[in-house]
């Protein structure tokens, strides 16, 4: 028991240490620019460090990816959990879990060679490296994770609930949507949060297809223009700045921002769940 407690402590220290390290490293940039760091729109190394385009890019890409993934993941999860026979269910799950482990770079290369060109042709764009491409790619990436975890959540709803519902004369479809789905909601929420975490932190796949332009699209909802996300920015510039200086500090501040964003999303997600379970 103590061993496990110790391991837990190590993990907590890692997370806390990382957070402190980020704050410590990014302190110089906040001292220099204050909170304008988050509001500035220009990022010119050595002159100005404004994180708004990256913040915006990360938020939009992740939100869009979620929007794309959620209906599909839920529909397929219901089908797998409620309508498939156990054997075929196991097969499908095995394949999904395999897909969930494919590294980002593989998706990135597929994105560069196919997805960006398809998006360009389908929408008749000037260029295929856009926010929309990155969102689609992320949606494809996180779909297996979200899907398989949502399905687990639905599967773990006790069989008596289903039997009772069916016994009361509900159809299989009604049982799935009115009984299983609400019961599985916390699990599904958790699955989505994990998906968001992966999407927000994904570096290489996004970097290859997002266009890496540090500018807020014009108009702001134009998802068919290039933009930049926080991890992609870090991926492109970290090696040059590593170790010290204002540039490094600015990059660490971006890392800190991402950290806080993921924390916030998880926090809000948990609050949302708690309120639901109380009511």
């Amino acid at each position: 028991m103590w061993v496990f407690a110790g391991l837990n402590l190590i993990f907590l220290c890692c997370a806390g240490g990382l957070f402190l390290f980020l704050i410590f490293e990014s302190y110089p940039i906040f001292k220099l620019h204050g909170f304008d760091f988050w509001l500035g729109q220009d990022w010119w190394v050595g002159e100005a460090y404004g994180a708004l385009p990256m913040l915006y890019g990360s938020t939009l890409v992740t939100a869009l990816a979620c929007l794309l993934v959620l209906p599909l993941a839920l529909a397929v999860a219901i089908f797998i959990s409620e309508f498939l026979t156990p054997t075929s269910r196991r097969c499908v799950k095995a394949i999904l879990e395999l897909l969930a482990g494919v590294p980002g770079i593989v998706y990135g290369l597929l994105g560069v060679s196919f997805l960006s060109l398809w998006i360009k042709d389908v929408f008749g764009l000037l260029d295929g490296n856009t926010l929309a491409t990155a969102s689609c790619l992320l949606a494809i990436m996180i779909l297996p994770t979200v899907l398989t975890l949502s399905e687990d959540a639905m599967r773990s709803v006790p069989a008596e609930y289903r039997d009772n519902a069916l016994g009361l004369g509900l159809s299989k479809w009604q049982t799935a949507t009115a009984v299983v789905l609400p019961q599985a909601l916390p699990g599904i929420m958790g699955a989505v949060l994990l998906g968001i975490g992966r999407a927000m932190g994904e570096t290489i796949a996004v970097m290859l297809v997002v266009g890496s332009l540090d500018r807020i699209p014009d108009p702001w909802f134009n998802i068919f223009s290039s933009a930049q996300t926080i991890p992609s920015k870090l991926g492109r510039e970290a090696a040059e700045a590593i170790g010290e200086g204002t540039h490094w500090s600015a990059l660490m501040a971006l890392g800190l921002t991402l950290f806080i964003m993921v924390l916030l999303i998880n926090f809000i997600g948990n609050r949302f769940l708690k309120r639901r379970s109380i009511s």
Partner: protein
Amino acid sequence: MFRMLLFFLVAIGVIPFPVSADHSPKIEIVGSTTVLPIASRAAERFEKLQKIEKFKSSHRLRILVNAGGSGVGIHSVAKGRSDIGMASREISPSERKRFEGSHLKVHTVAVDAVACVISSEIYEAGIRDLTRQEIRDIYLGKIRNWKEVGGPDRKIVVVDKERHRGTRHVFMNYIFGNPTAKTPGTILVTGSNNEEQTKIAQSDSAIGMLSYAWINDEVRAIGIRDNKSIVNLTRETIRKGNYPIVRNLSFITAGEPNGEVKAFLEYLKSPEGQQLVEESGYIPFT
């Protein structure tokens, strides 16, 4: 999130503890993707040469070559994270000042040109040269359609590079007179030569900047027009110094090199090394 964590653990862990598990000599080279083909060719041959000379020794020399860009190359050699840095541009005054204590020494091995390149579709539609002013206006976003410079009616996909890249420094220095010029017309930002080459080849209306060795049938170099005279990009015009955007490709050491590093740099400057420069598509430095 896990990837971020890993990145930071590596970042924190690597700096204070340079790994030296085995004692065989090792040279680490990091930097410009333009210089990389020369370095990797030379590394391969040099390792073999060493093996023949010292075949009884169990300590075989290993040379590791990594990309990253000129800025990364200069930075990592100055900080002692690699033995040799590769740069496709001069060390900038601010870098000189910042790394004063490392006594950076430049060993030039080749001459390269930075081409203004366009997608083959535009090249075939008749654009063969542009003036400096036209390129400047394209990068500033004043010219947005190929029509305005005599091409087809198609919007221009303006491809820029990461700001620390050597190729960008040299190109922008010629076009704007400022290596870190701001380019509001940009549509895409790329990193390595390979990445930029791919993006321009995939597009049918792109303009960008590439090292001479990366030009092919899908990514065509255009001439620079000045009044009525046009300088096209050929081996001859680079060698004679007529083509305006040329640069030296260099290896950088912190202080005077010695031991294996010195031998490797001497090999690069030898006739055999210069032959490798030619094989990589660049002009030998004499």
